[in-house]
């Protein structure tokens, strides 16, 4: 028994419900010579699920027997630990875990894997697969190192890169991979899935409520299914008027937005700062905080359209500063104060 999100996760390419055209193409790929892949799409779209399906398609059930190891690497300055998930046929790593030292991981680990041949004689494929998560967080140096590895060891190594956006993948890598885009499923597709789960779990879920859940989860199936499970565990009867639970930290964001819209003063800035600190201490990424506040203000109906132009402008402006700076609180607060002054200037 597990969460519905895992229970109803498809494990073969045939069973994938969203983006069936794409699944068919992936199936074609696994039959012929398999290229390097670059899989990209928004969070929750099902990139990881597809990768697991591809692995299963390539290697059979053996790819599901996985274990987690910790490997350490020595650099001049410090020791790095990285978690590696591996089966007989593939390994999976998240190089961004070690920050700017990711190049070393690639150099040592990939070369090591690339140089060892597939030992298992029964293996369906001659090559091993390396899955690289959060590929857009990899430094440029490491990407350049990767580029060489991809060419050199093409005979016994395939790489599957997984990322949210290709913007930060360097061109030589992109041109060596086949790009696979995984869009978020539509509202209808998610509602259908929810209703499928509901009927399996013998819970009544009306179409309109399923739509509402899908809509509020912003087309993210993971969120939608989790939300549904939460609702099912909290309330006995699900009618159309049931309140759909929100993630706690998003409620804090709503709270912040509300405060900014209500009063624009130094005191508000102080209270907002408190809340931002709290969000940060809960490990919410600072750029996400800024983005959510910005979107909340942008779609708020009480703010004049003129102010919104300034708000969205300063949001990108300060997000840029945040990425190139050190102290995120400075920039988030600067954004909040400039949003406040934008609101003030249109008020009178």
């Amino acid at each position: 028994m597990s969460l519905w999100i895992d229970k109803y996760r498809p494990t073969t390419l045939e069973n994938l419900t969203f983006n069936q055209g794409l699944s068919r193409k992936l199936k074609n790929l696994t039959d012929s010579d398999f290229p390097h892949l670059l899989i990209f799409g928004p969070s929750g779209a099902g990139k990881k699920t597809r990768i697991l399906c591809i692995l299963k398609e390539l290697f059979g059930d053996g790819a599901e027997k996985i274990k987690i190891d910790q490997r350490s690497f020595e650099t001049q300055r410090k020791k790095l630990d990285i978690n590696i998930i591996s089966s007989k046929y593939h390994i999976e790593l998240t190089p961004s875990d070690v920050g700017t030292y990711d190049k070393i991981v690639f150099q040592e680990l990939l070369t090591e894997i690339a140089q060892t041949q597939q030992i298992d004689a029964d293996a369906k494929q001659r090559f091993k697969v390396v899955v690289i998560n959060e590929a857009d967080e990899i430094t440029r140096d490491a990407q350049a190192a990767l580029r060489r590895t991809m060419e050199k060891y093409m005979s016994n190594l395939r790489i599957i890169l997984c990322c949210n956006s290709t913007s930060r993948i360097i061109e030589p890598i992109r041109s060596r991979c086949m790009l696979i885009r995984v869009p978020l499923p539509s509202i209808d597709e998610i509602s259908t899935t929810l209703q499928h789960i509901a009927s399996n779990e013998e819970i009544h879920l009306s179409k309109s409520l399923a739509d509402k859940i899908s809509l509020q989860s912003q087309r993210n199936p993971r969120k939608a299914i989790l939300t549904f499970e939460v609702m099912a565990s909290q309330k006995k009867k699900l009618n159309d008027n049931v309140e759909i639970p929100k993630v706690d930290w998003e409620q804090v964001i709503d709270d912040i937005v509300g405060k900014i819209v209500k009063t624009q003063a130094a005191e508000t800035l102080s209270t907002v700062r408190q809340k931002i600190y709290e969000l940060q201490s809960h490990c919410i990424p600072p750029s996400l905080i800024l983005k959510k506040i910005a979107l909340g203000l942008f779609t708020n109906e009480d703010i004049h359209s003129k102010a919104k132009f300034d708000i969205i402008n300063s949001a990108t402006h300060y997000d840029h500063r945040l990425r190139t700076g050190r102290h995120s609180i400075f920039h988030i607060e600067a954004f909040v104060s400039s949003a406040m002054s934008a609101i003030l200037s249109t008020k009178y």
Partner: protein
Amino acid sequence: MSRMEIDSYDNEITNIKPKLWVDKYRPKSYKDLVGDESVNRDVLTWLVQWNYCVFEKGTPHKDNIINTQFNDRWDRPEKKILLLTGPPGCGKTTLAHVVATHCGYNIVEINASDDRTGQVIKNKIKDALETRSAVFNKKPNMIIIDEIDGVSSSGDENFVKLLLDLVDGEKQSSRDVNQLMPKGNKTSKKKKAVKKPLLRPIICICNDQYTAALRPLKAYAKIVNFKRMQSNRLAKRLKEICDREKLSADITTLFVLAESAEGDLRNCLTTLQFIKQSSNKVTRELILNTNIGQKDANKSLFTIWEEIFQIRSSKIRSHDSVVARNSENNVDRYISRLEFLISTNGEYEKLMQGCFENYLKYNFHDQKFKISQINEWIHFYDQINHRSNSMQLFGLFAYFPYPIICFHRFFSGVAHPHLEYPRKDYECYVQQQANENIMSSALNGIKTKYRLTLNRNIFITEFVSYLLKIVSPELESDNGLSSNLNKSILSRVADIMLSFNLKYIQKIEDGKTIYAIEPPIDQLALFSNKKRAFRSDMTKRLIAKEIDIKIESAAGTRSISVQNQKSSSISQSESKSLKGQEKQILDFFGRPKTNMELDKESRQSGGNLIKPKVWYRYHEGSSKAVRTKMKLKNFL
């Protein structure tokens, strides 16, 4: 702060060779001291509290409130270290010496010039406390550690730690500390075998009590804060000395001197002596040329923050205008002044943080405009900070003071600022680290199969909040515990929690036993707006019980099968007892059963596995409604 009792030196002046005025006019006895009488008395009182312990004279201060509270065997003061803090030159060292001499101690001074690594200091203190210059006097030793804020928190970490070890002597069993006991002490002889305590007073002196290295010390120390001496009193004192030294000076000139030295008597005296070398008359120009206003004082952080947020009084300003007469306008004046202060302090990061955390508290006009301007400056600061650190562009260090100075430009006021030490950012950082660790342990606990599709980011932003809610279900009603629906919910929740390696464990908080989730993912998911417990303890306890049952039945399945294999070789008596069990075991695997039975029997089979000779039944709770069966192991 120290009074120069000039008369007593009258006859010396003529016959001794030239001496630094600072030493010459240093007070020699407690009577000579002047200044804040309450501070002097504080220090003296503290030292006198040691009398019984050190000299075995006087009455034990059993009536003393501190001691009765603390109930010290040697009747020492509660805080065993005295920490004197204050700006340079206000007489801290002098006071410590004078008071120590007054009470009859032999002073051992350790200052910044000495090597202050752990081992060296250990030997030094040990020597000081053990040996006694027996030939000259019978005075017990006492240690004064000057400039203790100079120890850095990293390299000399041992130093402060060692000091604390000494103070904590009773709990300390290390050999070195044992030897620290002065030998001629009767009290100690009685307790020779026991770990030996610190029996001599230690006085520490520092300029900045907020230095990171001193933080652990502050809990053990009585802190006496010195304030700057008022300029007019200082000027009067200087006048007396000038007269004595046959240096002609008028009181207003000396006042300027006192002002620019910022109450630092030592500095004034040095300057005066310097002037005396060349002329017999002190003039305004001479004083200003010696640049004492620019003395290289490492001002404490608070002083600088005060300077930033407070507009200086007009008196000082008029003086400053002379000092900075090269610079024409007001703006340049405060910039160069603050720039100097900030760059000599050098702790830009902390200074900036202090300004950032304090500035919003001020009432200022035209707020929006100023805030967005200061934000641009903060951004500038962040940029140079980022570049100098990550790209090693250390040339940028020169620009650090300016963004900080801008806080003065926008937010300074006449009122005395109520500053707080900036700790929010650090607290946030600490909290974040703690939460990162919780997240790591939570993630590592998840079964590999389910972990594949999660990363840290998804876990925290999209997952944990839902997970917490799912494992805190709402049960039908509190009375219908045995209903099938509730049973299935419970069993499902327990399954999920097992696959994520989550548990409800008992904790005692405020005297009440509560159930808390472990690893504490509720800390990750919940915010201060609703930190309270999510579900009743009742539900949590039921879930915890269900998890235990599941774990046991899983373990039971394994060990029973092992037992069955071995059953041929086991002894007669054991096989008898097994027979009874086997029936149950058959039941357990044989047919589908209701949840209630499963519950009961899996419990029993779990109990039977360890084949207890004694059964002990404990019912928790007094009312039947909440009575539950408890296992012995729950209490162990």
